[in-house]
Each structure stands twice: as C-alpha cells, then as structure tokens.
C-alpha cells in the first residue's frame, strides 16, 4: 500500500474534528462511496475516542498517530498510541436490546471494517489496524 497519509493529533477530544476531516478526505482520495465514507469517518472517530478514554484515561497530553493507505484490495487505517495497553478480549459492545449509555462505539467500528486487530507485539502503547476490503476482494 503506497501513498500513505500520516497525521498526529494530541489526545484531546477537540482534535476529533480534525481526525474526521482528514479521514473523509483520505477516503475520498481512494474513491470510496459516500455512505461507506461516513461509516469509516464514524468508526475512526470512535477508535480515537476509545484511545482518549481508555488508553490515555482522559490525559490530553498524549499523541495519536493515524496512518491511512489503500491498495487494490483494501483501505487501511493504522492507529498508534502510547497509552495503557488495551485488553482486546474485554472490548465488547453492549447488546442493542440493553438500552443504556455507552457500548456502541465498537459496533460502529466493526460495522464497516472487516478487520479490527490490536498488534500484540507492540511493546508500549497500542497499534490498532482497521481494514476495509473493497467489494468482492474480501
């Protein structure tokens, strides 16, 4: 996957709007349709929200690095942070029937991305890889 776009934003919620703007711009470069673009924008926003909440525990002095790329088969976003280690086995969305605040972010991520994977080899912080396969390339 060539021509990657890389941005670094502070772990402050006010920069989520920047993440969304860049995500949509990146997605459009790869000629992804508008509906999928909106779903990807929401999913990447939710992933960064989770980093601010859970990895940095609200500490706004951390960094989030996003790398967008695409090849013939897929669109990929790799998100790095230096916060607390995520425990992928404990990341679970709430049931849609259990109506309460929270627990929807992970559903929004998995709705559009085919792969949602933490890099177990990363020693400090987290590396989350999100991959969306193009139609018929899965």
């Amino acid at each position: 996957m060539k021509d990657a776009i890389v941005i670094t934003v502070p772990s402050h919620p006010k920069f989520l709007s920047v993440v969304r703007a860049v995500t949509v711009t990146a997605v459009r470069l790869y000629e992804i349709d508008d509906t999928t673009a909106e779903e990807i924008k929401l999913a990447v926003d939710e992933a960064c929200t989770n980093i601010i909440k859970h990895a940095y525990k609200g500490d706004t002095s951390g960094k989030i690095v996003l790398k967008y790329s695409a090849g013939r088969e897929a669109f990929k976003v790799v998100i790095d942070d230096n916060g607390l280690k995520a425990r992928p086995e404990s990341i679970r969305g709430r049931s849609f029937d259990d109506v309460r605040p929270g627990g929807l972010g992970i559903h929004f991520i998995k709705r559009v991305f085919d792969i949602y994977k933490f890099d177990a080899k990363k020693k400090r912080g987290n590396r989350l890889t999100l991959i969306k396969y193009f139609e018929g390339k899965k």
Partner: protein
Amino acid sequence: MNITVAVYRGKKVVELSGDIDMYSSPELREHLMALIRRKVPSLPVNFGNVSYIDSSGIATFVEGLKCMKSYGGRLQFFGIPEGIMEIFRFSKLDRVFEIYGNIEDVFNS
C-alpha cells in the same frame, strides 16, 4: 456544536447544530440535564442542523431519555437527517426514541 433553547407555541424546544462528539457532548449533557432536572413534561429536540453524532452524543441522549422516563417525561426528536437516522436505525435506537418528521408532528403527537 451549537445549542439554543427556543420557545415554540409556549414550549421549550432544543435546537442543535453542528457535530455532536466526545468534545461537545458534555456541553449538550449540561443543557439537557438542566432542563430535565426541572421535570419538563416533554422536550422536543430539533436535529435538522446536526451534521454528525457519535456514540458519546448518543449516550448523552440515552441518559436524558432514562431520566425523563423516570418521571413520565417525553424526549422527542424531529428533523433527523438521513445519515444520522441511519445510525439510530443501526443501533436499534429508532425503536427507543420518539422520532418525528417535524415540529408539527411533535405537537400533534
């Protein structure tokens, strides 16, 4: 996000615009809960100019709804753009929130 409270036919209506995300939802929560604490019987919310909502914004409304239901109040949404409606449908929250096309539908409900 911008939030204002308008008065329409003598009733308070929350008018929202812009993006509702983790950054703006605490302000939304503050305004919403201030109204709900006064036990308003119904609270119409105009989504017509909302461009984006994430799970933080949705969580704020779910919390508001639960508080209102505890005293028999009604949280009523109207003017939801299709992109946001699709998020409510995906989350099955279109069955949980009272959703109307426009303010007249709210007042006729």
